């Protein structure tokens, strides 16, 4: 009986807490008469969302595709570079300082150069999303490849396996869980990257919408855009997690073994 009630409480908790959060926000705004241009109440934000629904949807769509495009380039590039680093110790040692140094640069500082090179448009957000998100992919793929059990490598080599065989049959499948762990980080970063670049290097995207809305002091729209970003971010993240679950079920065997 108590176990059932506890389970019910666990199921209900996320909804209760979320509703309570917005209710508190709404109450605070009304109680302390906080001006709309400072912190709009959730009801005002909802109104703004309805009013500007087309703009929000339009710009969300652009943010989505630019993020996914940058992320896709990062995945391809990250896997290739990761394989190169994992397969060759010399490449690994040689590129280490460059990679670490490059990763240390806050990518927002690169946006002006991207505008200089490519002008205002879709390229800077896609490039920023790519540049900000490839690093964790490279590191994780390389780690997955370079931690193959030496015995297994011996077994394969003794059979006359070429380096390529070992890479394809063992290295790459083995590094999949590492890859997907990094994709969850990378997609979030790519999202940050594209929104940052949109805000001053593109005419489209939620980042750009926020820049323009805040210039107009349309604070409810700024907040509506933030909420849209949150929803979009959750959707993108959830899609990545689902993809991971399908691709690397074997790595999460603690749950699978019982079920």
């Amino acid at each position, binding site marked *: 009986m108590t176990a059932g009630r506890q389970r019910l409480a666990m199921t209900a908790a996320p909804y209760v807490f979320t509703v309570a959060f917005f209710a508190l926000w709404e109450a605070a705004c009304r109680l302390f008469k906080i001006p709309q241009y400072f912190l709009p109440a959730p009801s005002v934000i909802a109104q703004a969302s309805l009013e500007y629904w087309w703009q929000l949807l339009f710009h969300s769509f652009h943010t989505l595709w630019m993020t996914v495009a940058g992320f896709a380039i990062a995945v391809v590039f990250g896997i290739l570079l990761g394989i190169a680093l994992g397969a060759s110790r010399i490449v690994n040692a040689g590129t280490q300082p460059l990679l670490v140094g490059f990763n240390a640069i806050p990518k927002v500082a690169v946006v002006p150069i991207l505008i200089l090179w490519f002008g205002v448009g879709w390229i800077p957000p896609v490039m920023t999303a790519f540049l900000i998100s490839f690093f964790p992919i490279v590191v994780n793929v390389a780690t997955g490849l370079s931690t193959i*059990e030496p*015995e*297994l490598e*011996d*077994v*394969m*080599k*003794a*059979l*006359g*396996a070429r380096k390529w*065989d070992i890479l394809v*049959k*063992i290295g790459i*499948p*083995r590094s*999949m869980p590492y890859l997907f762990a990094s994709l969850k980080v990378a997609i979030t970063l790519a999202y940050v990257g594209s929104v940052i670049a949109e805000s001053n290097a593109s005419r489209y995207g939620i980042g750009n919408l926020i820049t323009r809305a805040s210039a107009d002091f349309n604070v409810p729209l700024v907040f509506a855009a933030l909420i849209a970003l949150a929803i979009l971010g959750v959707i993108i993240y959830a899609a990545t997690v689902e993809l991971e679950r399908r691709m*690397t079920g*074997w*790595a999460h*065997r603690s749950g699978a*073994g019982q079920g």
Partner: protein
Amino acid sequence: MTAFVEIDNVTHAYGGDGGVIAVDRLTLSIAEGEFAAVVGPSGCGKSTLMKLVTGLQRPQAGSIAVGGAKVAGPLKIAGMAFQAPSLLPWRTTLDNILLPLEIVQPHRKRLRRERGAYIAKVEALLAQVGLAGLGAKYPWELSGGMQQRASLCRALIHEPRLLMLDEPFAALDSFTREELWCVMRDLHAARPVTIVLVTHDLREAAFLADRVFCMSARPGRIIAERRVAFPRPRSLEVTYTPEFTDLVHDLRAQIATARQAA
């Protein structure tokens, strides 16, 4: 009787000249179909011996021949099993055992076309080691002993003429270990394979092998050789006879001397 594995005056060191000498002027020969065991204290270069014989490492001095041919590179007629079963968790047990066939010729070429026949072969082998019908399971669904059985299957599926075992049962509990001794004994009896077993376990060596070689501490050298005369097929009861105990004591004394010398 000509030797199948012929190790002649082999010296091997790690870290180049002046590095740690792993084995020193090692000489031993093993006949075709023989079950040889190599025992010795930790760090006596037993694993180096494995790598040298399978061609994963080239000796710095001396020569090694297997099946009448000098070992000059990885030996494709060898199968290997280690202490860790090292099965691939994303493949089923069956697919794990098929792995060598995806690498070794001529199977590599034939595998796709004759997959059914190969699968039947894996299933027969699984039945031989007591894993009948478990091919569809993933390795992590099997116990440690079962994984090690599957690992033995993987080492044998391409019908190697030489099987190299590096402490394959060391991580198992003693009951499972004795079960696997019997599995190993039967696998050896059923096929004309030459086996080299590297182990710390003197009872294991005495139970399974035709001949036991004792190695000294690093640099590894053969210091004694004992022929095991118990008739085959041996039952586990053999291990409780006084003759068996004497043999194990004798081997133990050899190792003790080797350790003191180190």
